[in-house]
């Protein structure tokens, strides 16, 4: 009897641990490099603590047209932060995995106008994200489709 109860305890423990591991592995599918539909930037999603953040790692036009200097966050409503470089900028912040291919509770920042929007990420397939930025309620929003990028071996590219 005692043996059975130990066994059942261990089974429950293992099952819950494996569920945790699976959940964590599911969540981490968001990690990687992604490109918004406009192709103007590339964003690397990373994990800090329990949350996911996206950092601009590449800009199609990295220099400011007026100054010729690397672009900074000139439209930030916080004037004291307008000198933060855009390359390396975290424009996706604080996403938490909610299961079923959805990351929520985060925000997306648009450096073009300095606005921060509530945001939900849905992975529609392993290489595609629906990024929905919205104001207050999800209905008042816009969805952009981001695609996953990877380094492709040169020989593969030439084929």
């Amino acid at each position: 009897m005692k043996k059975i109860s130990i066994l059942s305890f261990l089974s429950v423990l293992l099952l819950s641990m494996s569920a945790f591991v699976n959940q964590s592995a599911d969540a981490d599918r968001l990690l990687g490099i992604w490109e918004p539909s406009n192709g103007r930037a590339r964003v690397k999603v990373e994990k800090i603590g329990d949350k996911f953040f996206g950092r601009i790692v590449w800009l199609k036009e990295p220099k400011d047209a007026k100054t010729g200097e690397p672009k900074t966050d000139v439209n930030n409503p916080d004037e004291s932060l307008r000198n933060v470089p855009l390359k390396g900028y975290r424009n996706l912040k604080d996403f938490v995995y909610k299961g079923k291919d959805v990351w929520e509770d985060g925000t997306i920042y648009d450096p073009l106008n300095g606005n921060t929007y509530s945001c939900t990420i849905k992975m529609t397939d392993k290489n595609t994200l629906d990024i929905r930025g919205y104001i207050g309620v999800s209905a008042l929003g816009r969805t952009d489709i981001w695609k996953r990028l990877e380094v492709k071996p040169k020989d593969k590219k030439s084929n």
Partner: protein
Amino acid sequence: MKQLYLLGFSILSIGLLQAQTDSTSEEDDFSMYEELDFVDEGAKRYCSPKIEGLSPAQLIYVGYDVQGPYTMSADPLTNRNGEEISGSDEMKIAATHGLRLGCNIPVISKTSLVWQMGFNYWQTNFEGMEQAIPAGGRNKVIDQHKNAFHTMGLNTTVFKPLNDKQFLLFQGSADLNGDYSLSDIMPLNYLKYSGAVLWGKRPNEKKQWGIGLARTYRVGELNYIPVFMYNWTDAENKWGTEILFPARAAVRRTINPRNMVFAGFELQGQSYRLYKDQNLRSEDLEIRRGEIRLRMEYQFSVKDFLWVSAQAGYRINYRYHSDRLDGGKETLRAFGLLSDAPYAMESTLTNPFYVSVSINLVSP
């Protein structure tokens, strides 16, 4: 049992390994990010409906429009046989004013398709009816200006990108325009349908243009006209244009992304059904209102997504004639090219200054 322990240990190890994974410790070779390709080789890029620097689209707006004093002069009104049924008249309008509100809510908003549905309601009130009535009595059409005119309708916009450079744009609307009251809204068979289809190109992030065809009541009566779109922003994001000719065109000066000044014009128009007066209703009359608004506009963000638009300008009357639509049948004059059918009544308006203020919730 031993196997169970092994399994438990291996799962625990995976958990520990994952706990130690820390993605930010990877050092980035930034040059690498230029050499990337889509994992999904079939992935297609689509152009965005917007360009950089464009004024933000309005999700919800509530505003008020006021036109200053002007004079409305009417020739005699004729019946179906061309006989005069109401004499000429002239009335000084002290002010024309009214609430304007609407919304534009995205139904589908994806990279590959944007579909929005909207609602709009405009009210037009006329002040000045208390003036001296001519000996022959008030002209029957002018008399209807004691009623508020209403415009209420639904509209839809579909943006379909074809690829990363080309797109199709469709706009359509169905409006009820007339002097009906909100407690007795006129039947839906008086709906006016307008629409436009454009094919366009978006060669870069700062320019989009398009050409197309519109069915419109913007000059008061029905017309089919070519339309031309040209939105552009300069390299420094200071200057730009927002043009959907002939409906509107403006030069934009961007002080910063939350403060913009515009100079330009808008063509506004409706065909107002005279519905409220039972006797006049059977005459099937519609006032073909078309006006050009030369204007300056200042748009700014009050807080986050809440913007204010304040515009002031000069309203130039284009047309204010009354047309008879027997059985609802439109007369397609095409600026006199297809028909020179006479109006049931011709009117002229002098031109006042106007102001318009609205508060808007703008789109991401």
